[in-house]
């Protein structure tokens, strides 16, 4: 089985500027050597706290951002440095769904125009043919025909997200990068959208890169999960492995912090001290917050991401060769 998407040693550094000349003083490593593979038809979850680099990875894949280093392979072709004229073709293969539906929809266009625009751009489809396709897409995502001439602001957040999904589907993509698609929604509406996404995946044979900070949602949606901490993957494995046998102390803490709606749930809650800003730039980035018994190298050597099982990788000295 070959991967539909492969990301190898991806780096995205942002310049930190300062001084009177606004010179580049140093680099901020938003994504720092990230590798993963996403199999056709599957869903890979990308989890981490805000600022961990999730959106940046998504934008690099869509080539909305230029990677600093590394390579991105889609359906066997290297798309890392794809030419501007080939971008349109790429965008008909890979689409992105954003967290804030309102901000990502043009408020001056009707729902029909919003969903129809990509049909015109990519297929030069217009008139009745376009209208029929738009109505079909609206039906697929659970919008009604009478919504065609309405404007996005007339809709609730959940309905707006449906509009965004219909627009993304218009070009018949194979891969969707979903960037916190339900974070702004209430739980009852979130459930509707998650179920819709699952239906669409089965129906159109879609592959998802599912970005979220909500581990409960990720558990429901994903086949595999990668956890990010400060731009690096700290653990990746099949979803049930991540939830049943988390190895990285950060994964363990995140899982224990899921606010489950069950007051009886017996668990050893791990409360981390401090926040992301504590990283020292040396050793393991998580070391200053780690609740495990630290080894000497934790504070001096960055732990590499190593396979402890065939499909389970962890970046932690406690689970390395030396442990």
């Amino acid at each position, binding site marked *: 089985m070959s991967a539909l998407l492969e990301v190898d040693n991806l780096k995205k550094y942002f310049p930190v500027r300062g001084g009177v000349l606004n010179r580049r003083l140093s680099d901020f490593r938003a994504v720092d050597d990230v590798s993963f593979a996403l199999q056709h038809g599957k869903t890979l979850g990308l989890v981490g*706290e*805000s600022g961990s680099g999730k959106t940046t990875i998504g934008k690099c894949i869509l080539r909305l951002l230029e990677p600093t280093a590394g390579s991105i392979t889609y359906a066997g072709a290297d798309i890392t440095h794809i030419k501007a004229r080939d971008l349109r073709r790429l965008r008909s293969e890979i689409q992105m769904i954003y967290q804030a539906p309102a901000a990502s929809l043009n408020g001056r266009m009707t729902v029909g125009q919003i969903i129809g625009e990509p049909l015109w751009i990519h297929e030069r489809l217009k008139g009745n043919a376009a209208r029929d396709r738009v109505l079909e897409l609206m039906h697929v995502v659970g919008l009604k025909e009478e919504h065609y001439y309405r404007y996005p602001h007339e809709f*609730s957040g*959940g*309905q707006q997200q449906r509009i965004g999904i219909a627009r993304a589907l218009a070009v018949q993509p194979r891969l969707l990068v979903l960037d916190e698609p339900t974070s702004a929604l*209430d*739980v*009852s*509406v*979130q*459930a*509707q959208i*998650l*179920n819709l996404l*699952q239906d669409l995946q089965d129906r159109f044979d879609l592959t998802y890169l599912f970005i979220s*900070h909500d*581990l*409960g*949602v990720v*558990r*429901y*949606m994903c086949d595999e999960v990668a956890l990010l901490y400060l731009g690096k993957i700290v653990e990746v494995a099949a979803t049930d492995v991540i*939830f049943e046998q988390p190895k990285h102390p950060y994964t363990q*803490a*995140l899982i*224990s*912090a*899921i*606010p*489950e*709606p*069950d*007051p*009886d*749930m017996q668990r050893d*809650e791990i*409360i*981390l*001290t401090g*926040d992301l*800003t504590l990283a020292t730039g040396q050793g393991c980035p998580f070391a200053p917050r780690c609740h495990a018994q630290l080894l000497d190298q934790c504070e001096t050597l960055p732990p590499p991401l190593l396979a402890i099982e065939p499909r389970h990788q962890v970046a932690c000295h406690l689970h390395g060769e030396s442990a």
Partner: protein
Amino acid sequence: MTDLLNIENLHLEFDTYDGLVKVLAGVDLRMRRGDVLGLVGETGCGKSMTALSVPRLIPMPPGRITAGRVQFNGEDILNKSESDMEAFRARHLGMIFQDPVTNLNPLFTIREQLVDAVLYQQAQGKKVPGRWRGFAPSARQLRQDAHERAVELMRLTGIPDGDRRIYDYPHQFSGGMRQRVLIAMALAGDPDLLIADEPTTALDVTIQAQILRLIRSLVSQLGLTVLLITHNLGVVARSCERVAVMYAGRVVEEAPVRELFRNPKHPYTRGLIAAVPQKEVTRGGLEGIPGMIPNLIDPPSGCRFHPRCQHVMSVCRQTVPAPVTVGEQHSTSCYLYEAPK
């Protein structure tokens, strides 16, 4: 024992360009001293407005309370004068809100803001430090005391190095630390009731866990009474002793936290719990609640949940269900549980 807080049949409307929005339609809520009550429900159901009716911070106009009352310690709040209200807030209430960024002034150090909060409480007659009783303390002595109290509050809320960090500006603190500062400010006057409106919603999960633990420890250390508002059932399950579930301007169910999660009665509560992707739920198994929250300009008749309810009966469309007792300290407003007349 009289209730610390007793909200009865509260009705609130907003006059808007599009029409009259019937935001609260008969909210009942009681709290005793020492209660930790969670108020849950989805966006727009009236949680914040219910909470803001206690300090009377609802903007009026456009808001208007058309019926009901709010009692604190047996005293009616709604007809107090504005100046009495100011003293009342300072003496009895502490408040924290969702977004720590907008609630701290970036131009002043934590010391200036926290010391001000303490001095303000004192000016409102809350506390005269024991050792000055009988003397009129100088402004400098008061400030010195307030400084010490501020550092003490920072320690209490788990801000390390308070005596040094008190000179920092808000931007030098992380989101979680700023939320702690706001909690410290809310505690400055030793409030009888702490109102926390979505205190962890803007925070990452690991920081949320820290803040919830802090609130729990303040409850046990200080015997605080807390009204915790959240849209997150998991937050309630972790932090509260009792829960009130709101839907479209009414409390539809109320119970001790275990009872509510083990034995939810109202179809909305059940739907809300079933909509959370929990451990056991496998692919395709999550249940949403069909439809969406109603427009409160023209709210559904009778039970406001009826257009989304699977059990709707004709009576549900006609009259508003009254709360019925369905278990120990457990009540719900739904015709499914009303004994046939």
